[in-house]
């Protein structure tokens, strides 16, 4: 009996998943033959690029709503805000500020609506958020592919396709590119450490940590451990859940803005794709589950997941002489991690 308990402790999901990822990425790195400096720089870039997006998943998990795949809607609202501001040709600091303001406003409104919807389907939030994400993607494409230039007048002709309708596939963001990434850039023998952005990501992590330890956070935890219990304690669970979703969406929108300014090239129709799945997989890779997530899971997870992500195509090339196999492997890892987490968690719930 004691042996079994110890075995269970050892194979606890919180430890086993990160360890598996660690082994896999170490092995794939060895096979890939990429230099440590290169991988480290890449992983750091991904860390600041995706950090806030991954962090935005934590609060809904704590509130017992599972993985919030609707963060893709937050990402899309950031992109929509960006496109609107570019199409109105607002340049400079005013432009950046209005993008931030608009994307927060949009994501608050959408988050409010999604929160309401999710209150109808308690217990099935994840599948509903996935479908909402797909639906929002269709609406987004409809607006920017068919609506721009027809219903919505566009002042900036540069971003419009030559036929006069629809936004181009790629919009250049070179004016915003790496504006904040280059602050406090430390260079140590080839290693480039964007200290400021790392601090920003950590600051967001700290904010969420702080928030979860205020009264709001305690209420969220109570709601997560059981709605009835929280109801008895006098918490308005439905309102709380809406607040949680709004917060998650705003964080996702800000995260997507950081992501876009880091890349510097804005693929209008594809930049947000997979933002949800990869972020969820990264969070789970750090040892989170569908019931509990901590800041450290997000931070560790990004490192582990993206190391594997960066080295696996090259590893596939070296092992099988086919880079595509490495890419299949990494999409399998992304989806498989989520599937695994779902199966393990629900099984526990049913026992």
């Amino acid at each position, binding site marked *: 009996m004691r042996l079994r308990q110890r075995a269970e402790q050892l194979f606890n999901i919180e430890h086993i998943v990160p360890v598996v990822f660690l082994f896999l990425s170490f092995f794939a790195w060895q096979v890939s033959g990429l230099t440590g400096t290169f991988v480290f720089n890449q992983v750091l870039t991904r860390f600041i690029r995706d950090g806030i997006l991954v962090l935005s998943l934590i609060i809904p998990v704590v509130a017992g709503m*599972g993985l919030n795949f609707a963060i893709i809607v937050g990402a899309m609202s950031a992109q929509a805000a960006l496109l609107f501001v570019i199409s109105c040709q607002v340049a400079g600091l005013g432009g950046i500020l209005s993008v931030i303001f608009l994307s927060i406003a949009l994501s608050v409104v959408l988050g409010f609506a999604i929160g309401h919807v999710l209150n109808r389907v308690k217990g099935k939030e*994840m599948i509903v958020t996935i479908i909402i994400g797909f639906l929002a993607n269709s609406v987004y494409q*409809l607006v920017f592919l*068919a609506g721009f230039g027809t219903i919505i007048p566009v002042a900036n002709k540069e971003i419009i396709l030559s*036929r006069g309708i629809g936004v181009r596939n790629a919009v250049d963001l070179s004016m915003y590119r790496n504006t904040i990434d280059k602050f406090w850039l430390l260079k140590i023998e080839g290693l480039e450490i964007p200290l400021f952005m790392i601090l920003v990501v950590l600051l967001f992590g700290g904010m969420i940590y702080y928030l979860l330890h205020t009264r709001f956070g305690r209420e969220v935890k109570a709601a997560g451990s059981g709605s009835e219990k929280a109801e008895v304690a006098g918490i308005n669970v439905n309102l709380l859940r809406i607040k949680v979703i709004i917060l998650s969406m705003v964080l996702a929108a800000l995260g997507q803005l950081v992501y876009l300014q880091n890349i510097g090239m804005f693929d209008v129709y594809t930049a947000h794709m997979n933002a949800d799945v990869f972020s969820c997989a990264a969070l789970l890779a750090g040892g989170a589950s569908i019931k509990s997530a901590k800041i450290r899971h997000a931070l560790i997870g990004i490192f582990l997941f993206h190391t594997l992500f960066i080295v696996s195509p090259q590893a596939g090339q070296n092992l099988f002489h*086919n880079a595509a196999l490495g890419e299949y*492997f990494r999409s*399998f890892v992304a989806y498989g991690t989520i*599937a695994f987490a779902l199966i393990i968690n629900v099984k526990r719930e049913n026992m």
Partner: protein
Amino acid sequence: MKNFSIKPPQVIILIFLIVLIGLAYVLQMDLIVLFNESLIKLVMNGVLVLSLIPMLNAGAGMNFGLPVGITGGLVGLCIAVNFRLTGFSGFFMSLLLSVPICGMLGWLYGLILNRVKGREEIAGTFIGFSVIPLMNYFWTLAPFQNRQMLYPIGGQGLRPKISLEPYFYNVLDQFCLIKIGGIEIPLGLLAFYGLICLFLYLFFRSKVGRAIIATGENEAFSKLSGIDIAGIRLIAVILSTILAGIGICVYSQSYGFIQLYDEPLSMYFPAISAVLIGGSTGRRTYIFEAVLGAYLLQTIYLLTVPIANQILIPEVTEILRTLITYSIILYALLYRDKRGIVH
């Protein structure tokens, strides 16, 4: 078809369909050709839609893991093509091969779904998503020998799109094709479809079938009356998966290509929304609903292409399709539990 009533999504779809037919008439499109095509489209996608019924009836929800069955069927098709089987022998061989393969996959899939009872849909989605890259390994590494299936030069593995033209393209579509004036009725194809419907109908009359329905309607009660819930659900999942495999075989022979790699992902959302348009609520579903839904959705798809090309921007067709599909699924998810069906 007890308590069959028209619900809001169906009203919207019907209005949309009437508007489309009106538009097609105004734009002077050949309505007879469109009608002929709509019959083929019905069967082409209809079997995939039917494949959802066993799982819906067993209370396992909409089968978002449809790619599991689809890839199984694709393996059967590829093996048949690899041995260059043509005509009916090729088509039936691929059916014969895909049944055991899908049966095995369905068994595994069912075992997993039994562990995640109550969350089948989200788990199924991600199982479906992860099956695709796993099967991509198979398509790339499996030792197929037919040169026409492989990448022409350099590349490794099967092509993403394998033509069925020299093998069994349209064997069912052309079988017993009756022409009355301009109208073409693919009798063989419809008969095949009818046979599957009949099989399902009889199956749900049998003891096992009734046990499946009972499990879906009230699990606690069926458990008390001595039904092996896990076993029954497993049977339903296996049957769903096998039918999905047959569905993709029918689809491919109509379409003329075997589509591999990421293509199965674009097939299952339309199938799910079709069954919902037909009137299913995501629980007990009648065969009639699946047939009606498949016909309505496919006719809309068929009509949107030429119309959108004439009056709108070409890309809008595809976007409108996905928009319709996802809205219907979302609607069903939101309103399913509000109809007094508690689970």
